[in-house]
């Protein structure tokens, strides 16, 4: 079903991911309040969805019914989505230079005042349930648009997530695709040291979801998995467990269990950008 994608295409996605990381660091330089490590683990997911043209959307008609809905439930960790939205034309690029400054709509934690965001985020565990309502509405209207949801693994501690997980399979929401940015860490520690979430795929299968697991920094694996799931209307909701690294690309963050609350000082940003590959 899926057209073979060339190595050139994936090289293009990798270039975009590098560019998004640089832009995210530039935002962090001026907005130290932003959550950097958590925003870096999901870069390839955003890139594949948007530059891989999996998500159908229209920046000049944001509310058009034909758009796929994308709910970014892990609000804090999506600062890396700002440059993509600007690049796609949701708002002026200059706005990226004003993150967290007076008068901008780009805060440290995004909500739906930002063009391109569907819902209010920042409080965790809400996105999947809201997405279930949207998915149900689309099914009742017999529409084919998909609802993509991005959550962090730490967010899975919220009980409301599991209320929604039960609901989605019962109502056969096969237009719902949950992507878990499985970066293995919360704010204070690695998840395995708090309450171990593994085995995640078995948990979802027990709730009658289809599951796939990929390397969440490998654009080719991500592309293949998400596009396959996006075309599968087999009666089950789908979850993609994207194994990622919190703080990906910055060695000082990658090995730090407290990376969530670490900042890179403005004067160190240039050397960190130079380190990116």
């Amino acid at each position, binding site marked *: 079903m899926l057209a073979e994608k060339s190595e050139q295409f994936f090289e293009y996605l990798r270039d975009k991911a590098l560019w998004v990381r640089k832009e995210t660091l530039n935002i962090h330089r001026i907005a130290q309040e932003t959550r950097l490590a958590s925003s870096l683990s999901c870069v390839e997911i955003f890139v594949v969805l948007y530059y891989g043209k999996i998500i159908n959307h229209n920046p000049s008609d944001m509310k058009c019914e034909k758009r796929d809905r994308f709910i970014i439930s892990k609000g804090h960790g999506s600062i890396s989505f700002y440059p993509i939205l600007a690049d796609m034309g949701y708002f002026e690029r200059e706005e990226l230079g004003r993150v967290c400054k007076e008068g901008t709509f780009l805060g440290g934690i995004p*909500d*739906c*005042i930002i063009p391109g965001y*569907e*819902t*209010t985020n920042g*409080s965790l565990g*809400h996105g*999947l*349930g*809201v*997405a*279930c*309502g*949207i*998915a*149900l*509405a*689309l099914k*009742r*209207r017999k529409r084919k648009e998909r609802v993509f949801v991005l959550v962090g693994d730490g967010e899975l501690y919220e*009980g*409301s997530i599991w*209320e*929604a997980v*039960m*609901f989605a399979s019962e*109502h056969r929401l096969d237009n719902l695709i949950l992507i878990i940015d499985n970066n293995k860490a919360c704010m204070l520690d690695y998840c395995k040291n708090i309450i171990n979430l593994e085995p995640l795929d078995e948990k979802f299968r027990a709730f009658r979801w289809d599951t796939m697991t990929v390397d969440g920094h490998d654009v080719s694996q991500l592309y293949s998995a998400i596009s396959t799931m996006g075309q599968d209307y087999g009666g089950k909701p789908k979850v993609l467990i994207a194994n990622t690294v919190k703080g990906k690309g910055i060695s000082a963050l990658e090995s730090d269990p407290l990376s969530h609350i670490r900042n890179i000082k403005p004067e160190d940003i240039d050397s960190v950008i130079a380190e990116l590959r």
Partner: protein
Amino acid sequence: MIIEKKTMRDAFIEQIYHRMHEDSGIFFLTADFGSPVLDRLKRKFEDRFINVGIAEQNLINVSTGLALEGYTVYAYAIAPFLTMRAYEQIRVNLSLHAQLKEINVNLIGVGAGLSYDVSGPTHHCLEDISIIRTLPNIIVFSPSDWVLAEKFADYSIKTKKPKYIRFDGKPLPQIYENINDIKLENGFHEMRKGKEICLVSTGYMTHSAVGVADMLVKEGIAIGVVDVFLLKPLNDDLFFEAVEGYKCVMTIEEAFVKKGGLDSLVAGILNDRNSNIRLVRMGFNDAYVFDIGNRAYLHRLNNLDAEGIAKNIREILNVL
């Protein structure tokens, strides 16, 4: 005067059931809470009726998603669980969203105040008015009888904002005679005119207030009664006009007093106008009700029965 007893929920859901026939844009969700009318609704509209299970958080979240897609949604549950288990879902997904988007989710909470008398403090609902009233962009409706509840059906569809509809759990008699003359947007109605003292109440307690007024009239004491049914937004100016001729306003509610409920709403209105009308607040002090007994018994223990209220009125009249 018709005194047919009926539950507010049955009267209201019956109206929604009828509207669902002509309006395909209505969903009805419940957190495993029922009513006789709901059984019919469920059978007729199996595509637009959903029982999410005992899961109030998901009830609000799924309702939000449907409403973001343009549906009018009714989300039905027991009042304390709806408002308190799922409070943050109401805040983030309804209150915050409604400032930026059109979102018509109607929360129907059954069991206001001490409706579930013998079920104890987990099922009593003495906090909902104050905690929901503090959330921006949400309408709070607290009717005192089923005809008023019925009248709200049209308003709930046309006014595309989140609403909290708090219904009593018990069948209650009709107290509104000319419902067509009632303007919902005013938020209140003057049930009795009187002198010196005016009782201000909401929901079930309006039945008590009217009862006390009719009892005292036989002793030659005429007191006013104002039923506040729209706790947010209430037309403050009109309300003040209705009470400004009295020397004392006495609020009566099945709620904790001095905590942001009806009494605080009235206190704010009087205070904003530098009024020297005396305010007396009747309700529950800062403690849960663990006593077992029916509503009349619990009211008696807390001086909220007719005799307790009347005694308070007579004492105040002596010192006014």
